């Protein structure tokens, strides 16, 4: 059925519309998470059965292992990803474009979830706020899964008198924990907060490419079962970095890891494109770069690093998969390959990824500080310079992970220098935070407590990082628990605690409910104490010489491992309390006002819950974002131009 609509009223303009085919949304009305599951499972089953039939009996891989499990598992993974995405409706948009069936305003509103209520969270919804909430839930699932594996690891290491798991399963949970946490940490700010907050913060109605936004989220959803399934196929037994040639010789579970990374890197790539273009082209009128909030800089920087670095990681896994499936020899030295090639490709992402995690977290904290200290951000330009400096140096430090591999010893010292240099722009960010706090009158709420935790952790993680960047120290510490403690201080201590502060800050805007800060604070500080116990003790074990990724160890390390395990359980309790605060507040919390913290930036000037189109009339920015002490920089102007946002009724959704 084709019912041509002449025009539609789109934000006040009468706009000619393409032909409306059927009801708004078309086939997307029938597609959702359930059809995605059905599509994924059906295609995975078909692909697995057909591949099993077609694989010659007795076929073997390059390492003389039976080939059928590899081929069948890969076919199942591919079938799952393609079938799931098709079932979700990810291919409908490109096919409509191909056929020249452009969507109408009514289609776009349906796709954005208008009037769909809770069902919009189970569909390929394009509204950035829905995607942000979906990301928040995915982050909690992924970090919860990774955290559970961490508890298993610490249980094994704490029970020094017995072997709880088999060595191969222990190796699997180490590797799976590592990559699950890395993925979770990469998206913990870039997913929920960047997607939900940044478009509103810059005065836009949505992201630049709403369908790409939904695509990035659902690709992540498709990738997650690939990783979990690897545990049932022998697991990822070589740590999260899955060095070659061990990985090629590992069980089929490696293919689950590789598929996860290939899909996740694509998800991150399209998300980066979207965030960058949104920032570059959709900032409100008057929002010059000097009036752009620091969170936007942080998100833009992380997206840029992800954009150039993730393809290297993705291709390292494509080449590894090719070695395994097609018998190529990129990483097989006997046939002219090189394991150093893998390590270079891997770490070309591997280190920028640390900043992809830390910079957005730091930017969130710099966003929080002026609000609760009622002071302008100390040296905004310094903060921007710090972020730019990190981006500039991020691609020049990767080989500090390879000091001990024997690769090009002559370049160890240049990489040592570049690694030490990057501590300077990172230090800028800490100084900006401390400068903002200096002589401020603090309003101590949960987000501020997270900042204290981050500064403490970052100081320890940063200083130990400078040690480890030095070649002579690294020669002694490499592969020890000291390194494990160091990167947990950076990624978890700075990254995750920062993200907890960010979630606490933006919770009311994202959910429409106030977070139970009492329970949240108890959770945060419990986790903080547990964190110090766990990783402080791990520093000691590392200095004593305990190697990482080792199941059994000398009794010399027993005490520090017992302490670490007790600390880990305390972290687990703290995180559960924090999670409980989030869930209970989301369900039963006090309804939030539009701007409970009195922030001056744009996202807080919209009603809560935020209406579908964010702003009835696009705002005009006339002041810097942190002009606390100057009366009402936005409200003054906006009220004059557009009226009071807080009181406007613009079709909000529950």
């Amino acid at each position, binding site marked *: 059925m084709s019912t041509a609509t002449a025009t539609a009223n789109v934000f006040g303009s009468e706009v000619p519309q393409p032909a409306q085919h059927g009801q708004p949304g078309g086939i997307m009305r029938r597609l959702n998470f359930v059809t995605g599951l059905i599509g994924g499972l059906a295609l995975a089953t078909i692909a697995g059965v057909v591949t099993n039939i077609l694989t010659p009996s007795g076929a073997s891989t390059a390492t003389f292992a039976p080939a059928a499990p590899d081929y069948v598992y890969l076919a199942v993974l591919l079938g799952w990803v393609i079938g799931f995405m098709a079932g979700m409706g990810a291919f409908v948009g490109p096919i409509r474009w191909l056929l*020249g069936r452009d969507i109408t305003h009514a289609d776009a509103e349906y796709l954005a979830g208008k009037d769909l209520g809770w069902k919009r969270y189970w569909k390929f919804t394009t509204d950035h706020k829905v995607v942000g909430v979906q990301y928040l839930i995915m982050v909690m699932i992924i970090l919860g899964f990774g955290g559970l594996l961490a508890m298993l690891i610490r249980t094994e290491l704490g029970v020094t008198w017995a072997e709880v798991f088999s060595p191969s399963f222990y190796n699997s949970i180490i590797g799976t924990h590592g990559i699950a946490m890395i993925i979770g940490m990469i998206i913990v700010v870039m997913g929920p907060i960047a997607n939900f907050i940044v478009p509103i913060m810059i005065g836009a109605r949505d992201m630049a490419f709403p369908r790409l936004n939904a695509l990035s989220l659902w690709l992540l959803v498709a990738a997650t079962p690939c990783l979990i399934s690897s545990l049932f196929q022998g697991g990822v037994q070589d740590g999260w970095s899955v060095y070659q040639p061990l990985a090629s010789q590992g069980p089929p579970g490696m293919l689950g890891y590789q598929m996860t990374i290939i899909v996740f890197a694509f998800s991150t790539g399209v998300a980066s494109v979207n965030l960058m273009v949104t920032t570059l082209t959709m900032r409100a009128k008057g929002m010059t770069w000097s009036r752009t909030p620091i969170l936007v800089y942080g998100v833009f920087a992380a997206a840029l690093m992800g954009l150039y670095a993730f393809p290297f990681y993705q291709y390292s896994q494509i080449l590894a998969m090719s070695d395994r499936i097609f018998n190529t020899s990129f990483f097989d030295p006997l046939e002219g390959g090189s394991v150093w090639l893998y390590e270079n*490709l891997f770490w070309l992402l591997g280190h920028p990824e640390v900043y992809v995690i830390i910079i957005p977290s730091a930017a969130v904290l710099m966003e929080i500080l002026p609000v609760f200290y009622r002071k302008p951000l100390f040296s905004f330009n310094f903060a921007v310079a710090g972020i730019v400096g990190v981006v500039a140096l991020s691609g020049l430090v990767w080989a500090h992970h390879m000091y001990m591999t024997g690769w090009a010893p002559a370049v160890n010292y240049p990489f040592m220098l570049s690694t030490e240099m990057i501590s300077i722009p990172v230090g800028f960010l800490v100084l900006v935070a401390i400068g903002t706090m200096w002589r401020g009158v603090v309003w101590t709420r949960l987000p501020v407590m997270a900042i204290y935790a981050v500064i403490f952790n970052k100081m320890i993680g940063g200083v130990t990082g400078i040690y480890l960047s030095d070649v002579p120290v690294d020669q002694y510490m490499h592969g020890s628990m000291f390194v494990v403690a160091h990167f947990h201080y950076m990624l978890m201590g700075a990254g995750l605690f920062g993200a907890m502060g960010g979630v606490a800050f933006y919770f009311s805007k994202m959910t429409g409910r106030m977070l139970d800060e009492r329970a949240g604070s108890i959770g945060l500080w419990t986790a903080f104490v547990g964190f110090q116990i766990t990783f402080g003790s791990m520093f000691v074990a590392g200095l004593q010489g305990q190697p990482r990724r080792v199941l059994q160890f000398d009794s010399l390390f027993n005490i520090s491992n017992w302490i670490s395990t007790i600390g880990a359980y305390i972290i687990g309790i703290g995180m559960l309390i924090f999670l409980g605060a989030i869930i209970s507040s989301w369900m039963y919390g006090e309804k939030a006002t539009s701007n409970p913290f009195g922030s001056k930036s744009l996202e807080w000037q919209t009603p809560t819950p935020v209406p579908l189109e964010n702003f009835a009339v696009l705002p005009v920015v006339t002041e810097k974002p942190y002009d606390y002490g100057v009366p009402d920089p936005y409200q003054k102007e906006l009220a004059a131009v557009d009226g009071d946002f807080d009181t406007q009724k613009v079709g909000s959704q529950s």
Partner: protein
Amino acid sequence: MSAETHQPLSPTTGEPMTTIARRAKAGLWTLIVMDVSGTLALIISYTYLWSLNVNGGWAPPGASLTDAQTNAVPAKSSATFAADWPFWAIFGIVVLATIAMWFGYREGKRGNHAGLIVGAGAALLISIGGLVAQWMQISTFPFGAGNGAYASAVLLLCASNIFHFLMLIFLLTGIFNRARKGLINKSVYFQAQLMSYWMVWICIAFLLGALCTTFLQVSPNTDPAIFGTFQQQQ
């Protein structure tokens, strides 16, 4: 069309199409950055393995090299390097397709709608021809995937070409169809413009591959690192 501005407006957001075009152009540049990184990963892999010649295993086993070039590793089969000309022929095909698309875009911008359709259609047909040629090249290589690092690197470069061809064919089909339906026209031509830009990058990607496979065949490393003795004892 808005009565005030007389500019075409986006049916979904109500913004001027020039705004949508600017946004799409920024999106294209960022996508190109992403694809450049991926292509560079392959080029780095090729040049890295070529320069190291680990275990003397870079060249296909039957390539006519001196003992010094192979470090006296015995040949296992008669596989040799691939011929140069097919890489350049395929590169030429992509350049032709790009010229056709540019012609179409320029004509469309000038208001010659038929020229746009002809240009996009020609680019599409040429790209399909390129895909077939690429497939034929792969299926007639004198080596298999397991014949050393050179074979691996060349095959993955060709696989990357196939991926690019498939994308080109999908996008050009869309451009052709949309031009035919009048959705790309003198007023709204940014999709054809972006397609032309994208194809220039694709030409560069193919050129990089062809340069590697032509000029970086025999490894310069005549004293490669030897790991293990498995291969030498054969």
